[in-house]
């Protein structure tokens, strides 16, 4: 690539060698070689300056492109793990975390509680006030619950009007307190949505991990689901612990 530049340098070096050998000074030959070298040097300097400047710009473009990719990655990650309506974690993230927590509980036989939460008579809200209000209810309820969640807990939207709370390192009595606190918090004050004041109640199913019963993650989740269903049957707006009779 630098052949032309190399040729000029070679010629100048050859001239020096010849001159040493012959001790014969030819001023003209020296002068023309010197001029050629200077020209070449000036041209090389000009090129290097351009290359440096253009190279820097090129590098800056690459960095900008890299930053853009990183930004998009962050955005994609957010989209992948958060529910776009309620802004709490989505089912994908919930199931991922649940898998990890279940494996941990199984391995160390450590405490783990699941609380499945379902809004009562949500269909009626949609029918009476419209879907936009229904959406706003989901958003408000999930945000109110989210405020009660500890750092180590995972809370997210499990399905339509169903939410799941995963509580690692907690015994059943404490998990029941959390569930009751959430239940009363949701039902205590009506939600102000537009001109409407809507009272919402929730039914909760609590299951405590048992290494003998919960042979796989589906069984454990199903117990929370059954407890929640039991709460519905018993008249809603209550919490049922799986395996505990009223």
């Amino acid at each position, binding site marked *: 690539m630098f052949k032309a530049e190399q040729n000029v340098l070679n010629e100048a070096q050859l001239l020096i060698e010849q001159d040493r050998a012959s001790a014969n000074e030819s001023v003209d030959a020296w002068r023309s070689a010197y001029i050629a070298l200077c020209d070449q040097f000036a041209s090389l300097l000009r090129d290097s300056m351009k*290359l440096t400047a*253009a190279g820097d710009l*090129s590098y800056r473009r690459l960095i900008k492109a890299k930053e853009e990719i990183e930004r998009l990655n962050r955005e994609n990650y957010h989209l992948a793990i958060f529910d776009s309506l309620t802004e709490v974690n989505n089912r994908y993230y919930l199931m991922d975390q649940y898998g990890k927590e279940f494996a941990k509980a199984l391995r160390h036989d450590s405490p783990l509680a699941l609380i499945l939460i379902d809004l009562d008579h949500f269909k009626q809200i949609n029918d009476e006030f419209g879907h936009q209000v229904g959406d706003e209810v989901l958003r408000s309820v999930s945000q109110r619950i989210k405020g009660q969640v500890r750092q180590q807990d995972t809370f997210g939207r499990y399905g339509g009007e169903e939410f799941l709370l995963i509580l690692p390192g907690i015994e059943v009595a404490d998990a029941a307190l959390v569930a009751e606190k959430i239940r009363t918090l949701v039902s205590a004050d009506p939600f102000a949505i537009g001109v409407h004041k809507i009272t919402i109640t929730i039914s909760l199913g609590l299951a405590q991990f048992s290494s003998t019963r919960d042979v796989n993650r589906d069984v454990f989740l199903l117990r929370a689901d059954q407890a929640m269903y039991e709460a519905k049957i018993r008249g809603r707006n209550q919490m049922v612990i799986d395996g505990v009779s009223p």
Partner: protein
Amino acid sequence: MEDLSIAKTKYTLAVSFSASRGLLEMEGSSYPENAFEFFTPIYEWIQQYVAEIQKPIALNLKFDYLNTSSLKCIIDLFKILESYVEQQGEVVVKWLYEPDDDDMLESGKEFAEDIRVPIIFCPTEEEKPSVD
């Protein structure tokens, strides 16, 4: 004289030189393993055109990314055009860049400096949907 056409790859430019129209177009990214090898037929074609055809040259360049070796090859390409201009040849270079790509514009201006070949900077038009 035959036209020169090189298909675009991930690492090399698309090249389309038309001898009859004097229109030379290069487009894409260039970071080949051996840039000089890639550019050699390009230099040869232009040198032949300059020697045989001796008509005006319109060179359109639209680059996405050039590695340092390719930058050096473009500088050498400009030198060939520069000597054609010195021999009274007519050359116009169009440096095309995306409207929001300030770095590519600046890069072109670096090239244009001290070069005795006219360079026009053109933001590429955004394609507008046709309306019936």
